[in-house]
């Protein structure tokens, strides 16, 4: 039912109008969930817009996904809003893709300080570099870990 997605549709519309060429895809997945695929070089601008203009001030996490068959990593920022009371249930998945052979992205710690740990985890687990990250060190892994980034798809368990 389209009525049920009124808030989501209007968010998507605002975003598309503000960034007509930088947003590759903006879709309402279902009630309360929006997917936003953006160009990696414009993600910082869109992030600031999301935080300041739309009130998406509360970072809920960052996921990295290894699409090895497509030769890319996808980085997904999960964002929710404290500022806007009637959008309490909405989560925006802000996505960007970086090539697998040179995985470099811009850090969004300056926009949402809360994403620092998640980005650090993506650095060690997937080998993605985040430019401008204040502390690009190991988070969970040992400092002397010299194996491949363990969450990459080609890394298998010995028992697997």
């Amino acid at each position, binding site marked *: 039912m389209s009525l049920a997605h009124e808030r989501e549709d209007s968010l998507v519309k605002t975003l598309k109008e503000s960034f007509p060429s930088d947003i590759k895809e903006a879709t309402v997945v279902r009630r309360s969930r929006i997917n936003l695929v953006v160009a990696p070089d414009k993600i910082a601008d869109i992030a600031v817009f999301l935080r300041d203009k739309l009130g998406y001030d509360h970072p809920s996490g960052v*996921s990295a996904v290894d699409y090895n068959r497509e030769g890319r990593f996808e980085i997904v920022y999960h964002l929710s809003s404290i500022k806007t009371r009637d959008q309490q249930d909405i*989560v925006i998945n802000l996505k960007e893709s970086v090539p697998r052979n040179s995985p470099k992205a811009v850090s969004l710690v300056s926009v949402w300080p809360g994403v620092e740990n998640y980005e650090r985890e993506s650095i060690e687990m997937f080998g993605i570099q985040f430019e401008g990250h204040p502390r690009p060190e190991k988070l969970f892994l040992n400092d002397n870990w010299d194996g491949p980034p363990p969450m990459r798809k080609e890394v298998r368990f010995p028992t697997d």
Partner: protein
Amino acid sequence: MQAMSPTEPGAQTMTLSVGPQHSGSGHMRLIVELDGDIIVSAMPDPGYVHRGIEKIIELRNIIRSIPVIERPSIIDASNLNHAWVKAIEELQGVEPPARGQYLRCLINEMNRIMSHLYWLSIYGVFLGHTTMFMWPLGDRELFIDLAESLTGARITYSYLVPGGVRRDLPKGFAEEAIKRTKYFEKRLDEYENIFFKNPLFTSRAKGIGILTRERAIALGSTGPTLRGSGIDRDLRKDEPYAAYGELDFKVHTRPGGDSYSRAMVHMDEMRESSQLIRQILEKLPSGPVRRKAPIVVPRGETYARVESARGECSFYMIGEGGDKPYRARYITGSYRNLAAIPEVLKGVRLADMPTSWWSIDYWPVEADR
């Protein structure tokens, strides 16, 4: 994490390593920089109990993953389990029967109480309050027994499965549960008298370990930590799932943002969960508890979340039609609140460090996963 640097000659501060041997519950380390006995900065160093669960669950079918999913927080097993089955059900389009949904809420609220009691007992340890260590652990048995009669296991139940729950209520459960929750609420009054109104606790918690509203939002805090900074957010209300939309309960907040506020939110939530258990048993609909669900993760993606004892627990799951997910990103309440630890410890006296950081209810195993 950088190597420990000893105090340099003429330096104003000293660096102290706290942990990794059980600085609270579960192994983790805090690197604390001190000026006299004031903490200038505190940097958490997690990872000592990292199990690579996100990798493990990519390699096993969704049913075999359930016990693994529960492991990060065995004291709050069913809430984590709920996030997992919810993600799977969202992709499958399966809706459990009403009775199953109510029973999920029942075990979730029992877990919330058990988890908060465990947290409280360790708070007692940190304050040298032996009674507050023993009482909550003793009273936790009230609910452990109930959970055992319902699921067959004391703490890690694997009770929730895609499509519903494994078992229906045993005979006499409701009567016993009502008796026990009423007794428990009387015990909470005694806790207040002996602990929460005690200067031993209040003098070391009020106004100490501040997490402001603004910082709580920016750092993405969640659960009692967020509500202790005066922010009224609880997924059970904000995005009602299972039977929570039909239940009557209050979201408790405290405006202070200090250790005291966070502790009192836990206390209030235990009372609320206790009455919720009775309410669930009263409103419990009849019918089946489980619907058939295939062992398959259909193609697609979802971001499913629940309110666990320590806040939002979410799965970002991507399926490609097999019996295991292509990717299942697992973010727990403790992991979210890890970022708040340096914030609350800044400017606190070393002696107040344990009570300040434990007020966040940070469970190292749950954060490391």
